[in-house]
């Protein structure tokens, strides 16, 4: 149970460059080491093998980059959160950068359940801009969008249309570093996550997602769309500023 005695904190971080080739699990281990290097006062589970109380949000596929990754960690003592991003980034592998930290309200829901939508920016190969735009328009107008997945060795067709919340081809000048057409994509994470690569394959079978960047994660609550750092932040009393 969150917030019973400790101080829960939510971090936002980016995963960019070569480090995108490490797995979600590897990222978790890198954070555990960074917490130890910086000697943060982590709260531990009780049991045979005490583990720090850290929980990560939605997994990011190996090879994809992100500007919007989150993790929740529980501390034993309050620390100065303003210093966190820089301190932790220095102890993390190059390319993993902590970009924000907030104290969490008591009993804030876990990241996995709270996040409802994810946004990606995708560098697309396999067609020119015009063809991509046509394919996107057609996909959005269709009621279903089938894609084949392999489940337990069997091929099954699944409809990814309900997961596709929005898709837009970026203007010509927004090509990615390798000159590819860039598409913005918003995907629902509930009831289960759908990969941007799966959506793209359903939009056009010749289209491939060459470069994927997760740009946002969103928590939809009572009609409002919140960024996870803001959604459950502990209210902070504004400090008096000496000027």
């Amino acid at each position: 149970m969150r917030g019973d005695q400790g101080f829960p904190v939510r971090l936002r971080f980016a995963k960019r460059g070569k480090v995108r080739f490490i797995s979600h699990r590897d990222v978790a281990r890198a954070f555990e080491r960074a917490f130890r290097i910086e000697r943060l006062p982590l709260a531990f589970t009780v049991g045979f093998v005490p583990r720090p109380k850290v929980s990560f949000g939605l997994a990011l596929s190996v090879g994809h980059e992100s500007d919007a990754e989150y993790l929740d960690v529980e501390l034993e003592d309050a620390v100065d959160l303003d210093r966190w991003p820089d301190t932790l980034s220095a102890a993390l592998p190059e390319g993993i950068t902590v970009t924000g930290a907030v104290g969490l309200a008591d009993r804030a829901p876990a990241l996995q359940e709270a996040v409802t939508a994810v946004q990606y920016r995708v560098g697309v190969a396999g067609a020119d801009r015009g063809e991509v735009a046509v394919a996107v328009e057609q996909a959005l107008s269709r009621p279903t969008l089938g894609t084949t997945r392999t489940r337990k060795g069997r091929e099954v067709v699944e409809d990814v249309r309900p997961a596709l919340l929005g898709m837009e081809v970026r203007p010509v000048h927004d090509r990615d570093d390798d000159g590819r057409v860039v598409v913005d994509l918003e995907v629902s994470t509930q009831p289960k996550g759908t990969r941007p690569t799966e959506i793209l394959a359903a939009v056009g079978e010749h289209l491939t997602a060459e470069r994927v960047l997760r740009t946002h994660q969103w928590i939809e609550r009572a009609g409002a769309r919140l960024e996870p750092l803001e959604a459950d932040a502990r209210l902070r009393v504004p400090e008096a500023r000496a000027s």
Partner: protein
Amino acid sequence: MSNLWPAVEPLLARVQKPARYIGMERGAQAPEHSSALVSWLLVYPDTYEIGLPNQGLQILYEILNERGDAVAERSYAPWVDMEGELRGAGVPLFSVDTHRHAGRFDVLAFNLSAELVYTNVLNCIDLAGVPVRAEHRRPEDPIVVAGGHCAFNPEPMADFVDAFVIGEGEEVVGEMTEVISAWKRSGRTSREGVLRELAGVPGVYVPAMYEVEYDGPFVREVRPRFADVPARVDKRTVADLADWPYPKNQLVPLVEVVHDRLNVEIFRGCTRGCRFCQAGMITRPVRERPDEQVRTMVREGLRRTGYDEVALTSLSSADFSGVDGLVADLVNKQEGTGCVGLSLPSLRVDAFTVGIASEIQKVRRTGLTFAPEGGTWRIRQVINKLITEEDLYAAVDGAYSQGWRRVKLYFLTGLPTEMDEDTLGIAELARNVVKVGRQYTKHASCTVSLGGFVPKPHTPFQWFGQNGIAELHRKVGLVRTALRKSGAQLRWHDPEATFAEGIASRGDRRIGRVIEHVWREGGTFQEWSERFSVDRWQDAMAACGLDAEWYVTRHRTADEVLPWDHIAAGLHRDFLWQDWQASLQAHGLPDCRWTPCYDCGVCTDYALEHVVASPVAPAGGSQGTGQDLSQGGDMPVEFLTHPSTRPDAATGASERDKQVGAHAG
């Protein structure tokens, strides 16, 4: 183009474990190259996960990068899928640090830790765009260097390697750098010239400077081609580890690797004198790191890396003098966050070791591993592994009674003089161990790990004819049958792989053709069972007109010139032969660190001596100081009279697997 990353990156989306190829470990360096610097690419010829933790490679990486005249980067054998992608895209082997073309380095240096990686060495040279055979290389090609334990018999790799380093590399890499630097400054013309210079560096063996003369199938002589080339190459040894507190910045990988923890080497060398153990023989004498330095390296290493586990490494860490005090302090005084795990490999099998283990594994007592190696006291005297049954039962009783549930036992089979009763003794010991365990818990389990013995150069068993494939299968079968319904599980090493290892272990220069043949037939990653096929090796031997049995299962005689006789580990040939004869009489030999020197040759010839951290020897029974060898020689055996000891084939369990410790399985 010096940075190949743009070419490598698109390939990574299509391979397993792409993080193998990105580098970026904490502690990694991105050195600036220049034509004035000698550039070394240190290559581990196995996967990244196995190669990254290698301490030898990491030590040289730091030492070279600290020099003003050298830079060093690292590379690992690309897995089969990545090799396919590289070849398909025409991209060469690269360093993981700055993704630089491997063929653009001045030196490609390989770590030879096991024979079955030899074909990977050829593959890496080829992927670097460098001619595989040394004789075809041009002055602009890198100099191919190899070191590590297998370099003590360099001959099977002599066709492919320009210069071998025999022994410890800390000092010699600097001396080699100076020679190569002068050669670069002089315009890098004749390759022969620089190789001849390198041959003059103590500890460096340049095979092209030697001619091998044969006498039928036998080697008659390995002769230097020039007067200034030494007839014998002696190993290099650093006198005092206190001068070498490396690695100072152990690499912290981003992905899981073997031995994924802080590793602090607490001593080198081993004087227990196990006769099958090449590592113990070639790394004498014992040099312990000062106690205080160990503590500093642990403290600073944990702080810098963020690891929560440390291994105190050596061939047998429970033999470190003052180990009990060290362990107690490390376990109790770890400040900082959370819990710190400690593990230490140990060859001792006794209550003392279990005492240390219980100090370490305060809470989660899962598994302990012991290596009695032989099934009966007689065979353990033959191999000089002087563990009594009482020691073993005391150890496992201690383990099970204190909450451990799993005990793993390592044994070798195919040992000299081994009779079926010795082989069956393995099953007998395991059955008794299960019985001991069941007194404490009905969940007690015992795993027997059985390796076929491969005789190694520079050991007393270098003259012994290895057991053949069929004989090893028969012996594994004996143990398997005898373990039915015993509650113990058996795992064994593939006798076919043991046989291939035997070809390379004591091979001569002619085996180079065989290795090349296996590689050309696609035989890479031979230590991976899914990639290994003994047929490839047999076919290659046949194609080269060589008799595999002659190399593997034949006993050598006293007067035979061994292919590695011109390489010296400091052990006198007379000593090794006497020890071989003593073993056949089942006579044990004490540990010379705590009992008088019997002059094996190492300290006397090389003006070295044991360096101990504390004058107090580790406590405890026959495996501590007061070795009781009175039982030695009680049961003389006749060699090779029993049908089960037909010369036939096999591999030792790797030392690194024999772990006692907090997270040991």
